[in-house]
């Protein structure tokens, strides 16, 4: 009798969302002290489209998941250390370092959680990369970093790491709204010869296997992501590029207006999840 009840509730769970959700919910706590919200109530940005939002962490194998629980195991943290050194390095004609204005990276805790965001002075939506380049060019009078260069992606990992555990909280109304709408259009456009939109894989089919891949919701709260597959840190726009390329489409470029808009939209779909980068993925 007991056994029957268990089996049938197992079946119901499996039918609802596939194998990932039939298990007990795993819990991510980093270094035993930073609890990470990997599953949150659906934010306004996904009203009607998703019942809840889930970090990509939940879709990975227990071995991959555990690498993120301890900074000594997380290969992405090596790049955080590189960026910490960079943070204190004087650059440009006036010998300014990031630390000349911001003291420590911890002073910038919270920034990752609210970008991309509207920049009043420039009258545009800025990603965190654009903000860093604004500091480099306008405040330090030196050269901008290439959008997905190692320097830039490492700095993204540092800025994410000091915000870990804080809820993603990207604004989608006000002056950012039209950019958000543009990003939403891109998310639902079926690109390429395979005619697939982001939503076909990450909204309609998360939890399902696509050949060897366990499809997640394609959230970006964990970026940059250290991927075991290519053994490096991967930036958000590089990931977008890879996913669009896989539809046999012509991709957009990292840093392009299309990817900036898409980033704002995808970030907002994760409002309420914790900042989790640098994450570990396969």
């Amino acid at each position, binding site marked *: 009798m007991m056994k029957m009840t268990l089996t049938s509730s197992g079946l119901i769970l499996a039918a609802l969302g*596939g194998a990932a959700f039939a298990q007990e919910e795993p819990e991510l706590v980093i270094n035993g002290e930073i609890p990470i919200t990997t599953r949150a109530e659906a934010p306004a940005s996904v009203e009607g489209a998703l019942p809840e939002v889930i970090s990509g962490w939940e879709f990975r194998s227990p071995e991959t998941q555990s690498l993120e629980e301890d900074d000594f195991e997380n290969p992405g943290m090596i790049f955080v250390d590189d960026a910490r050194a960079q943070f204190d390095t004087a650059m440009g004609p006036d010998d300014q370092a990031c630390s000349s204005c911001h003291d420590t990276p911890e002073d910038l805790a919270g920034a990752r959680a609210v970008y991309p965001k509207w920049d009043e002075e420039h009258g545009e939506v800025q990603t965190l990369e654009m903000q860093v380049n604004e500091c480099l060019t306008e405040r330090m009078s030196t050269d901008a970093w290439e959008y997905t260069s190692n320097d830039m992606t490492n700095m993204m990992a540092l800025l994410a790491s000091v915000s870990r555990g804080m809820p993603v909280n990207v604004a989608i109304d006000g002056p950012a709204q039209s950019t958000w709408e543009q990003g939403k259009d891109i998310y639902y*456009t*079926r*690109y*390429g*010869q*395979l*005619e*697939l939109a982001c939503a*076909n894989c990450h909204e*309609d*089919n998360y939890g*399902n*296997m*696509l*050949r*060897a891949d366990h*499809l997640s919701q394609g959230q970006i709260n964990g970026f940059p992501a250290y991927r075991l597959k290519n053994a490096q840190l991967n930036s958000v726009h590089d990931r977008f*590029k890879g996913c*669009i*390329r*896989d*539809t*046999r*489409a*012509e*991709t957009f470029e990292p840093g392009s207006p299309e990817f900036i808009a898409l980033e704002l939209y995808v970030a907002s779909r994760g409002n309420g999840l914790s900042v989790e980068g640098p994450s570990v993925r396969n």
Partner: protein
Amino acid sequence: MTHLTRLLAGVALSLSTTAHAADAPAPSDVTYDEYGAVDASLTGEPGDPAEGAKILADRSLGNCVTCHQVSDLADVPFQGEVGPALDGVADRWTEADLRGIVANAKQTFPGTIMPAFYKSDGYIRPGDAFTGAAAEGPLDPLLSAQQIEDVVAYLMTLKES
């Protein structure tokens, strides 16, 4: 001598393939009935089920197992679950139905995620295969007319009753 014969046989073969490809209707000329079925063989030739099975499994060809499970292809690892399992499809659909579904599933299932394998235009930002660069010039359909027939011939073997 034997060499030459083989060589010539090879040439004859590729010539005849070209001839058939020329006879096959262009993707935009294929006629679908109101349910999305395609009655006539695209090549006038019977398909080869063994070739069809390879096309279903091969990543560079149909790669159908990315989305579909097929028990008959149990030795192919990592079969997907985005689409329904194809076991017994020949019991559920006629040959004409299956030809339509493989050629352009959107005619049978409006808005389906399943790609159209015999279609060559009407795409948004079509790429040059998986390079991420823009496509140069007109695109070939994902599968040739004969490959569609091979796949249909294989699907027709998937019977449970």
